């Protein structure tokens, strides 16, 4: 029997988060079933039911280059900032 992954939205505007899976023969069953399991108390804003076979997972990443230049942690401006401030004569460098 097909498995449907359940993604649940808690409140409007929030992301859909994975909340488990259900087994159902088709989408109609999955719909009825998920409403029971995840909506009994009106606790979900919305659900996305996705047949597991429709999910294309991406989990392995090419790792040939150092990608630091694309990220915030790839830059350390503290010492240069200090130097620039001193040159411009602004207040003594502040300890962070």
């Amino acid at each position, binding site marked *: *029997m097909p*498995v449907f992954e359940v993604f649940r939205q808690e409140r409007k505007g929030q992301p859909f988060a*994975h*909340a*488990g*899976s*259900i*087994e159902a*023969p*088709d989408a109609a*069953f999955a719909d009825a079933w998920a409403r*029971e*399991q*995840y909506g*009994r108390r009106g*606790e979900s804003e919305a659900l996305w039911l996705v047949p597991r076979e429709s999910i294309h*997972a991406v*989990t392995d990443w090419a790792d040939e280059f150092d990608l630091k230049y694309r990220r915030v942690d790839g830059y350390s401006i503290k010492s240069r900032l200090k130097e620039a401030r001193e040159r411009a004569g602004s207040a003594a460098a502040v300890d962070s």
Partner: protein
Amino acid sequence: MDARTEEFLAYVQEGGQVEATDWLPDDYRQKLIKFIEMHGNSELMGVLPEREWILKAPTLQRKLALTAKVQDEVGHAQLIYRVAEDLGKPRAQMLADLVSGKAKFHNVFHYPTKTWGDVGVIAWLVDAAAIISQKALLKCSYAPYARIMKKICWEESFHILHGRDVILAMMTGTDTQRELVQEALDRWWGPLMQFHGNPIARDEDPMWLWRIKSQGNEEARQQFLEGYVPQIRELGLSVPDPNLRRSDDGVWTYTEPDWAELKSVVTGHGPRSQERLAFRARFLEQEQWVRDAVLAA
């Protein structure tokens, strides 16, 4: 232990989580299946002591609340079995092992519910003991299980409140009602103290080493006592253990629970074990037509 398994062990011990599609060491997978299966079994069997009281509940509101609780628990069982099935054990096999006695379920669900006091004590204190273990599972190294625990913990908190409400209605009622609660507590205290399992040292517990459990058995029991003994006492109830004591550094000491009783009960020799398993077996057979119809759809 081979290198790959050692790497896996280090990873989970540092807080790493894994998914169903990741490589899992055989021992990890087997232990995980057994643990999750027992949890699913417990949710499914756990409804039986309470189900008995739906028709006998004193008010319509209580009937509705009990029915809702039972519905939640069965839903939990289904979610949990789903997770175990993804690890490799078919659901039909798990249900077969349950009714044959091959697989276990928690001790507390092998005992009778003699009075309405029992119903309150179960929903309040048994669910409280369970939620402590379940909250710890939110950090389980196996992510699909940790994810469904979110929903389960959230729903269990309603159950506890319902239980407390039932107890409070009686504790603010007549002397007879208060005695009913105390009497139920007297009978349930033993199983409650056994619930978290014997105090195997964390570093000797494979469930901790694999970070399937994120706390030791004794840690869980201590948390239960710390949280709930005050709640029990503030209602004027007494805990039926004369040796129960809290030291200045917050450690509870108590009469050693009857571990022989625990072992006997979980291996199917509890007062209601066989009766409830027979009930479950009968319904599995009776409802085969539903499964057949769904599978044919």
